[in-house]
């Protein structure tokens, strides 16, 4: 075991709590307990996951794993008995939660209301499930409690009596939320009843938690309050400022509910901290935020889980206790980090299969977390349900279907069957989104393809599939899905579909076409479509810096919290050499989203040009911590430490690491256009190399044997995502684009050299043949540009640690192919069939010869 810096940990969950509501309340002194907790510890934004569904998120919080690993993927799931659907059960969780790990170390944990936690697990402590608090019947009727709600069962009766029924509440409880509650006609307006239920539910959870804290021994207590989420879903639309569609009377009636809900939570927090006592480590978190401002949606689509669209992507995070820094802000925290961080504070190793990180920046001391492969492989009493009680409800639903098909079981009624099918579909949709959120696009595509095939009229399945394809630059596949969607919608194209088409044009390196489309969308639907970010990206690609600046500023006017817009704006300044403005923008971007490697990279670049080498190095170092594969940052650091900070030993470290992060070898055939690159590509093909080409550019009179090109290569300056697909292959890249090759691959470059006069002549003839130039108008101005380009290649390439280059004379290759190809073969490791390669030479095609 490592060093234990926490004696006890109290983990408090406030579903949907958001700094945008809390900060002004703290400033006004309305949340004094939270303010004290924040000032005495660290705080920050807490990035959520997609889809932002609470049962999946709280399970990610308690396991450190993404939903596709932990198995809780929706609000409901098929009942394994086949009788219908049920709320998500803890028995569907496939991995250990943090309290199961503590159980294996004889630590005492208590868990109250965690979502999902029914049936309560047999842990060494008390577990009160999430089906504990809700009253479903009027107060004068019996209020039974489900079996399995409380562990140990002998305490069930006590906790049952502790529950607060909404009918018990009086005006004294309601008035702080709705001072004019008496004016409400409850026959017509059911909101008051809903509010009463929420207050009763969270007070019930709080009563149980306070009992545990005061009367039980404990190492870990986890308590989950869902009330802020409910207050917000019910009443955020009435929160000031008044939204246009909200009438005055309702606004005046309900405008205080959300704020009062937060104040009540501060009161409950005060009591929890009082009972927990000193020297306790307290972590207060929310799983996502909730838009309280102009980002509140005006209308929600009619689809399952639509209310999740009201959630904002950042929740809250506060950590306070012994060994924790004071009054500091932590950047880049995610809900996945809770379990690894708490394990580390208890001196326990984290699982390498966990998706989160330890928030080491929160600790006063430098701590290197211990790791094991997986806690799920460690045997021992984990306090989980016995294996025979653990279920896979989806496998159970499939097995049930098979038994029905075989005639062993009667088919359930049509309604139940429909409900099960729709739940399975919806959860598969969430599962696919979870894969996409974890950048596992192929897994997502497999699920979404099936869903879309089976449910072609459910357009969100198709749109998500198109997004998945777009994310991995599969342009043709994306277009195919969009076309099917158009068919389903009788030829209509939604705004989202048009925007996606624009994104595809950007991927294809057609920023002009994309720009035209986005400008049209903006013109046609100014109030509906917001395409500032897309337009900004087009303008950046087209180097229209001023227009890009305007687009990003427009976006920021709408959403000042958009870190990508701050970054985009920064790039417009950086490219115009407005370095100070650029630095401000990048600092804004990383202040909002700390985990933003490219914002740190560009910050480093701007500071470098300002000759602020220390700060520049710091920014590049942060970038590399987040994305160690960005070798361009290492190259910058090598230069800074060598030439400016005079720390050659650190420069050497980075130089050595550049080698470590090379992902693989790619053979590049390069040269000026018309210098024989297509011929060399053809030779490589015949010689046995795998060629990276899409075959789109067909052979023509200029190149009768083909171009061997790939459209994506043209977009190299802006889009490097495709390079991974070229690994182990041979790809044609013109000399001007060599500088854009990403620094995290190794390249063997065959560079074709041809007499520049011949190149110019050949290019001219090609333009004439294509009708793009006149026979007698040879453009010799390009000669100097080409010369400069070649000079730069000769000096720049050999200085790159990830590039080797062989210059091949076009003339020699045509006149004596075998001798030139032997050099090529040796350069590439003697694996080529050079006899076949030599057959490619067709002297009749060597049409432009200089007199030299």
């Amino acid at each position, binding site marked *: 075991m490592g060093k234990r810096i926490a004696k006890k940990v109290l983990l408090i969950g406030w579903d949907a709590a958001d700094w945008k509501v809390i900060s002004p309340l703290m400033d006004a002194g309305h949340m004094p307990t939270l303010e004290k907790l924040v000032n005495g510890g660290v705080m920050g934004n807490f990035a959520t996951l997609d889809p932002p569904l609470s049962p999946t998120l709280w399970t990610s919080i308690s396991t450190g794993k993404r939903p596709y690993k932990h198995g809780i993927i929706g609000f409901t799931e098929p009942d394994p008995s086949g009788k219908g659907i049920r709320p998500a059960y803890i028995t569907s969780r496939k991995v250990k939660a943090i309290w199961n790990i503590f159980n294996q170390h004889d630590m005492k944990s208590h868990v109250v209301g965690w979502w999902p936690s029914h049936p309560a697990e047999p842990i060494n402590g008390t577990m009160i499930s999430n089906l504990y608090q809700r009253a479903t019947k009027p107060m004068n009727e019996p209020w039974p409690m489900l079996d399995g709600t409380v562990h140990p069962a002998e305490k069930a009766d006590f906790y049952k009596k502790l529950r607060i029924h909404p009918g018990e509440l009086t005006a004294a409880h309601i008035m702080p939320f709705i001072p004019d509650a008496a004016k409400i006609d409850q026959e017509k307006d059911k909101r008051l009843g809903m509010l009463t239920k929420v207050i009763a539910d969270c007070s019930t959870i709080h009563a149980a*938690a306070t009992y545990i804290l005061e009367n039980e021994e404990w190492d870990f207590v986890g308590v989950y309050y869902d009330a802020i989420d409910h207050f917000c879903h019910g009443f955020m639309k009435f929160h000031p400022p008044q939204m246009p569609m909200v009438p005055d009377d309702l606004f005046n009636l309900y405008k205080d509910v959300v704020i009062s809900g937060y104040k009540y939570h501060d*009161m409950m927090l005060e009591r929890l901290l009082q009972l927990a006592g000193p020297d306790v480590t307290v972590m207060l978190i929310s799983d996502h935020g909730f838009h309280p401002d102009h980002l509140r949606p005006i209308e929600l689509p009619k689809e399952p889980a639509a209310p999740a669209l009201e959630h904002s992507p950042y929740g809250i995070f506060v950590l306070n206790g012994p060994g924790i820094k004071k009054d500091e802000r932590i950047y880049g925290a995610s809900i996945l980090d809770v379990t690894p961080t708490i394990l580390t504070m208890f001196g326990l190793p984290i699982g390498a299969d966990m998706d989160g990180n330890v928030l080491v920046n929160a600790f006063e001391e430098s701590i290197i977390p211990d790791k094991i492969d997986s806690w799920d492989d460690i045997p021992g009493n984990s306090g989980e349900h016995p294996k025979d009680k653990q279920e896979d409800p989806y496998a159970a639903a499939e097995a049930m279907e098979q038994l029905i098909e075989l005639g062993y079981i009667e088919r359930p009624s049509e309604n139940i069957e429909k409900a099960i099918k729709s739940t399975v579909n919806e959860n598969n949709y969430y599962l696919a989104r979870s894969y996409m959120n974890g950048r596992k696009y192929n897994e997502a595509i497999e699920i979404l393809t099936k869903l879309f095939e089976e449910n072609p009229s459910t357009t969100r399945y198709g749109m998500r599939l198109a997004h998945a394809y777009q994310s991995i630059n599969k342009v043709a596949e994306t277009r195919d899905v969009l076309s099917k969607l158009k068919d389903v919608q009788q030829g209509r194209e939604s705004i989202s579909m048009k925007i996606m088409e624009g994104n595809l044009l950007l991927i294809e390196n057609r920023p002009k076409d994309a720009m035209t489309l986005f400008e049209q969308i903006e013109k046609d639907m100014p109030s509906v479509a917001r395409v500032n970010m897309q337009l900004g990206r087009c303008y950046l690609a087209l180097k229209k810096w001023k227009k890009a600046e305007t687009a990003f500023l427009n976006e920021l006017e709408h959403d000042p919290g958009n870190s990508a817009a701050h970054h985009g704006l920064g790039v417009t300044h950086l490219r115009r050499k407005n370095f100070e403005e650029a630095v401000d923008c990048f600092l804004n971007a990383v202040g909002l989203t700390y985990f933003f490697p490219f914002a740190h990279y560009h910050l480093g670049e701007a500071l470098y040009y300002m000759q602020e080498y220390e700060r520049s190095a710091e920014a590049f170092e942060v970038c590399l911590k987040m994305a160690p594969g960005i070798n361009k940052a290492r190259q910058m650091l090598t230069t800074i430490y060598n030439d400016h900070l005079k720390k050659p030993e650190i420069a050497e470290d980075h130089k050595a690491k550049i080698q470590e992060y090379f992902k693989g070898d790619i053979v590049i055939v390069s040269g000026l256009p018309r210098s024989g690159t297509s011929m060399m590509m053809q030779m490589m093909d015949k010689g046995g190399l795998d060629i990276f080409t899409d075959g789109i550019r067909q052979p023509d009179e200029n190149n009768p044997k083909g171009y061997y090109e790939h459209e994506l290569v043209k977009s190299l300056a802006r889009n490097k995502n495709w390079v991974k697909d070229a690994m182990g292959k041979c790809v044609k890249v013109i000399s001007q684009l060599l500088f854009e090759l990403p620094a995290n691959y190794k390249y063997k470059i065959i560079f074709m050299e041809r007499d520049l006069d011949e190149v110019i002549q050949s290019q001219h003839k090609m333009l004439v043949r294509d009708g793009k130039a006149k026979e007698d108008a040879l453009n010799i101005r390009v000669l100097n540009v080409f010369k400069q380009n070649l000079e730069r290649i000769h000096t720049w390439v050999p200085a790159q640690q990830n590039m080797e280059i062989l210059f091949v004379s076009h003339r020699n290759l045509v006149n004596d192919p075998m001798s030139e190809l032997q050099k090529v073969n040796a350069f590439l490791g003697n694996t080529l069939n050079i006899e076949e390669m030599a057959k490619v030479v067709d002297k009749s095609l060597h049409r432009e010869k200089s007199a030299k």
Partner: protein
Amino acid sequence: MEKKQAQKIAITTPDGKPFKIPVEGSLGLLALGYKGVIAWRQVRRQYQKAREANKQQTENNQTDN
């Protein structure tokens, strides 16, 4: 645990003075947690008992008259 439900719970203010629990309850009592809930229920029960006793007394008085 059952004793906790039955035990008479007294609530004090932060400066140690006894707090008179209002029969209609309050958010502050709920925020105190289980002790606040139990104490409020006890007061409510006493109030209801007293009210019933008063009602009974009134009824008895009316019958006597």
